[in-house]
């Protein structure tokens, strides 16, 4: 299963991080290659983005369903391919270090199905970890900007 996990220390307290990640509208536009997203309900949304697979780019539409909101430390979601045959999930986890610092972990797993699944999963093996790292870093950067923290 192609997956990626990326952990980074953030000079913010855990509540500041929760304020940001609890609302998908905040971080959906930070997905690498973001095109658009639409909130369908409190837990359901659709996202469209252009994934950079290295040798080509592919527009993808997927559904994101929030499975769990565990305030203030965890958002867990499912991913379903709407334009292409894949599914998976992911989470953001925050772990308090002290009042001013938090460890944040992003995780994505995406698995392609269908006849071409074996081939596409080879491509995703590079794409998913890269995207996980880029997305997590983009979220951290945005949170630091909002909270006016300069490193």
């Amino acid at each position, binding site marked *: 299963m192609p997956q990626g996990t990326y952990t980074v220390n953030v000079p913010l307290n855990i509540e500041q991080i929760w304020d940001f990640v609890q609302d998908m509208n905040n971080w959906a536009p930070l997905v690498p290659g973001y095109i658009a997203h639409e909130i369908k309900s409190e837990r359901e949304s659709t996202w469209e983005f*252009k994934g950079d697979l*290295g*040798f*080509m*780019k*592919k*527009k*993808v*539409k997927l559904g994101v369903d929030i499975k769990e909101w565990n305030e203030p430390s965890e958002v867990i979601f499912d991913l379903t391919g709407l*334009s292409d*045959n894949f599914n998976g999930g992911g989470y953001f986890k925050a772990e308090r270090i002290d009042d001013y610092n938090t460890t944040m972990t992003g995780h994505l797993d995406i698995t392609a199905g*269908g*006849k*071409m*699944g*074996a*081939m596409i*999963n*080879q*491509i995703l093996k590079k794409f998913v970890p890269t995207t996980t790292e880029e997305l997590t870093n983009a979220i951290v950067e945005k949170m630091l900007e909002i909270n006016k923290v300069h490193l």
Partner: protein
Amino acid sequence: MTTHPTNWDQTVDVIVLGTGGAALSAALSAAEEGASVLALEKTNQIGGSTAFSGGVPWIPNNPYMKEAGYEDSAEAAATFIKRLALGRADDHMIDVFVDNAPKVIEFLREHTPVKFKTPAGYPEYYAHMPEGLKNGTRSLDPLPFDLNEIGEWGDVLRQNPIFPPLTLEEGGAVGGIDFEVVADRMENNIVTMGRALIASLLKGCLDRGVTVQTEIAGKELIADEDGTIIGLVAETVNGDKKYIRANKGIVLASGGFEWNKQLVKSFLKAEISTPVTPPGNEGDALLMSMKAGAALDNMSEAWWYPAMVDPTFEYEDNVMAQLGGGREGPNSIIVNKYGKRFVHEATTYNDMPRAMFEYDPVAVEFPNKGPVWMVFDQQLKDSKLIITMSPGDPIPDWLDQAPTIRELAEKIGVDPDGLEAEVEKWNGFCEQKEDTDFHRGTIQFEGLTTGGGSPENNLGKIEQAPFYAVPVYLSALGTNGGPRINEHGQVMTYANEPIKGLYAAGNASANPLGPIYPSAGGTIGPALTFGFLAGKHAATH
């Protein structure tokens, strides 16, 4: 042309522009003769159009054929090429090709890692013609190549988004793909087709001390007082200029001009949509050779392709034209804006688009100007790979569909009465098992791996809703015209004199065989051959 500088930044024997099949063949043969060779690549990836392609050279009478038991001769091949060329090629150059192409392949086999196989079950495109080869094929299938053999160069080998890492024989170009094998090859860095050909040629070049540089383009040729080309001005991506002297010659092999809109408008018969090549092919060699006084040939010709598009894919920031699929299958026709068929839909990719140039002098228009439309039904959707849709895949947003033919026509802007009548007529042909308008089901190419076309395999009614349509665009696998060359690959003037020190090969030159595509590998066969001859002549004269 620029006058030569007081000081040269670098001096070598032979400069080769480009790193595609023609270029690396030239670099390899020049280095084999002991020349110091510098190959310059404009983009950040090695391999040009060849790496992007099936990597198949069409080589008559080649040694692999003989071993496979297929009979051929230089005479038979020359007769066949002349039949296709219809007087549009120089007979002498055809003879040079059929005489030398097998020798080049033999040399590569014996002295380099460039190895091929005669693909079983992959016949010649024109096997149905009297002059065509009936048994076997002249096309050669590159053997899988382990990218680890070229070390870090593997990282800059141009990616091929068109073909999966399978050989031609394994179905890399015609379907029946085993995706587990594909995944295993990807995991283990094993490449095939165009990438295998380029990687193995590159290995041969590196073994002979050829220096390869990326992200540096040839910009201007430099001549001495008597007009001999003695060097060039190259420019890096940062705009830094380098004056490089070539003691023995320069080989222009940097691809065609299909990505240069101005040159396309000036020379080709019609504008083409996104070409099925890397975007670096902007006519650099053509512009330089024109300045040097080269004679030009075949300038209105390209290696045509009827491309289809899945708009969700992009290659280097352009919507990626795909090789399509399905047009040979039953349950489909291709129509113009009047809803009328205008061609045998499943003729070869270089032939079918020629019907799109037809001019109606009464209506004063080009009625078949693209995009035209492939119209098909659920039966085809359920049975063939169409663009990127495998049978059973969900219907993507970009695919037009409707419950009736009339509604489909209205949706895509095609005359509904015309399309309804045409589908009815087509279904009648299917019932009588004969297409009396365009003869579907009668030629080799539409049943390439199933023994040729037949009414059973290629005529099928369009009758099961929903009905679908995809646009078909005029595209190209590269351009066919450029500076005229002689038997040594030297660029010629209109006075029929060689321009000393200047050579061309591949899509950077006029195809020596004229505007023909004899079968799979019709571009790469001449490119490897004349690239090799050019490199050798440059190094030894």
